[in-house]
């Protein structure tokens, strides 16, 4: 049985692989999955009102009946076909495995079904049925073994990165610069693309990214945790905080997860502010450092946190609980704003001096 098409090969020439009634996009590289689905989307839906023929389901909650209902009905808008994407579909496949096996053998001709999976084992009947139905199966994973990774980087990732630089960012990325960039960032395609976008802006009139430019601009500043983002925000460095946020999101972090991490620290700042204000209202002053100690800030972080809280100011410090609550509710659906904007708004609030 033929191996599934790898995402970088598919993205290099998507027109060679037109969408079939069933598609499976699997793997643990979220950036690649997103790019592949975007290509399938434009191929199926076309321009104009095609977007109204797109249905996205959350595989953890989706019901097969609703998915089939979409697929069976001729499209009302766009180029004539519907696109139904079931995201995070592993649980959906487990739940409706036999029905999906049947569907792959006799799919609707009115719609295209795309299942986005973490894994797609070759020994399952669904995999075999997909192969015999000529379904578009795209592998979006990155090799995990060091030996495989090295050859994969040389054979697939570097060509993808140079092509991406040329087609999307309109700059030339020589092999040496590409190798250096991968060396510094690692094989995380979302982060690589973010850095490429930044480097494209820094490139000179010749629109070429040299290895030297990569060394100067990227400089190993790689966001590993949300703490860097939070520190930048509390230090008043809004652009850096927003940049770190972008990196976190590009590396596949969930917005609600990022908020949860920063909330852990911010709640301590909020509690310290409240303690200080309560003591002041009761007529006996309290040292900020002592308030921070009471909230559980570790000794080695006391000095830095105290400076950050002083910079934030008591007025903003007393609003922290409210800001966190609002961001939390907004991310859970109260606001129509995009999750990234909700987090950026929190960053801007934290960056402003109180």
């Amino acid at each position, binding site marked *: 049985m033929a191996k599934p098409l790898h995402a970088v090969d598919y993205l290099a020439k998507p027109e060679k692989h037109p969408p079939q009634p069933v598609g499976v996009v699997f793997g643990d590289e979220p950036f690649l999955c997103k790019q592949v689905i975007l290509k399938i989307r434009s191929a199926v839906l076309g321009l104009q009102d095609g*977007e109204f023929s797109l249905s996205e389901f959350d595989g953890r909650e989706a019901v097969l009946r609703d998915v089939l209902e979409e697929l*069976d009905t001729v499209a009302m808008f766009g180029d004539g076909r519907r696109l139904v994407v079931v995201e995070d579909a592993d649980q959906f496949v487990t739940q409706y495995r036999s029905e999906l096996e049947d569907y792959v053998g006799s799919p609707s001709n*009115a719609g295209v079904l795309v299942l986005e999976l973490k894994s797609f084992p070759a020994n399952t009947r669904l995999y075999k049925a997909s192969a015999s139905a000529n379904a578009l199966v795209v592998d979006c994973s990155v090799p995990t073994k060091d030996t495989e990774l090295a050859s994969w980087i040389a054979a697939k990732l570097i060509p993808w990165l140079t092509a991406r630089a040329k087609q999307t960012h309109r700059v030339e990325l020589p092999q040496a610069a590409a190798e250096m960039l991968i060396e510094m960032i690692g094989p995380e395609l979302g982060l690589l693309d973010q850095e490429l976008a930044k480097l494209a802006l820094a490139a000179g009139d010749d629109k070429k990214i040299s290895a030297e430019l990569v060394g100067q601009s990227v400089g190993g500043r790689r966001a590993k945790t949300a703490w860097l983002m939070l520190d930048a925000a509390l230090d008043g460095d809004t652009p850096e905080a927003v940049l770190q946020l972008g990196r976190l999101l590009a590396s596949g972090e969930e917005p609600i997860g990022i908020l949860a991490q920063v909330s852990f620290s911010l709640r301590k700042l909020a509690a310290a502010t409240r303690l200080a204000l309560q003591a002041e209202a009761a007529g006996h002053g309290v040292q900020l450092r002592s308030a921070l100690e009471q909230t559980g800030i570790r000794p080695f972080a006391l000095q830095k946190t105290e400076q950050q809280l002083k910079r934030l100011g008591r007025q903003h410090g007393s609003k922290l609980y409210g800001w966190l609550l609002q961001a939390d509710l907004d991310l859970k659906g109260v606001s129509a704003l995009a999750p990234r904007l909700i987090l950026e708004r929190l960053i801007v609030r934290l960056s402003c001096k109180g």
Partner: protein
Amino acid sequence: MKIICEREKLLHAFQTAAGVVPTRSPKPILQNLKLEISEQRAVLIGTDLEVGIRIEVPGIAIEVPGDIVLPISRFGSILRESSDEKLDLQSDGRKTIVRGQRSEFQLPSENPDEFPEVVGFEEERYHEFPARFMREIVRRTVFATDVESSRYALGGVLLEMTLEGITAVGTDGRRLAKQEGPAKSVGGHESGDTMTIVPTRAMQLIERALAGGEENVQLAARDNDVLVRSSGTTIYSRLVEGRFPKWRDVFPRGEDMVKIELTVGPFHAAVRQAAIVTSEKRRGVEFTFGDGKVVMTAHGAEFGESHVELPVAYDGTEMSVSLDPRYMSDFLRVLDPEQTFVVELNNNSSAVVCSTDDGYGYVIMPLASDKKS
């Protein structure tokens, strides 16, 4: 604040206004209604910040003006359970006292100043038309909207207002309902290039608030919101942001469409019969027009087969199309059983158009899968 109210009238207004109150909210005060008492009138206000309502409450004797915040569940229960014709209400800002003939309730009270403002209707440019037409717009379009998907623009009804009238459109991408009719434009009110998409929930609230009234409705669309007023009730709603699809392109054009006139009642009964054996896997009913009849057939592996015939005035070339019977029923349900409508169809993969002579149009997209296998 002190008033004497007629319980039934206040209950009616309270129940209507309670329709906008959110079940959960980060602002607990929104789970209340505010009663604004001035020298001249009493106005009941509710909002969830997206949709708001102001209702003038009749039958209230005002002794001392003032504002009061009334908790939905507790005060609503008092109004429902009480058998008194009149109730005394008074508030000292911290608690509300409700007195009947043989009962008294003390409720904790929130600060009325914290209740968000809901704007009233003070527009000079608006459209005016009978409440009956507004109810018809809601009844005939709202069911076709899609409030669950991520295509937010489809979660409301598009209102297009010209100097001559109003067109309302709702769609979920599988069927589309359009109602148009005359309406008077006051002050040159038009929607122009602005997309006035009113959330489905607000449209349903408008229908409830207008219940049975025969007076006129005034509707003013602004950049980000819409205001609707009718006999003492004003409804405010933020508009759905986003672009509505080009709905006119959905109606097939061309002279090769076959037109067949049908009567709602008998056709609806036949559709319901044919749909009895449909299943999740095979939801379609095949409609075949020709030879002076329409034949509706359905077959599913689980529930057997159905074959229902109905005489129609059509002897032309046989035309067949597979449709979801629920979508056909949704259209027929909002019409009078004695009414006639025209169904237009072309081939088995083109949209089917149903229309009445009072400005109602409905498009159903056919099913594809039932033709396979």
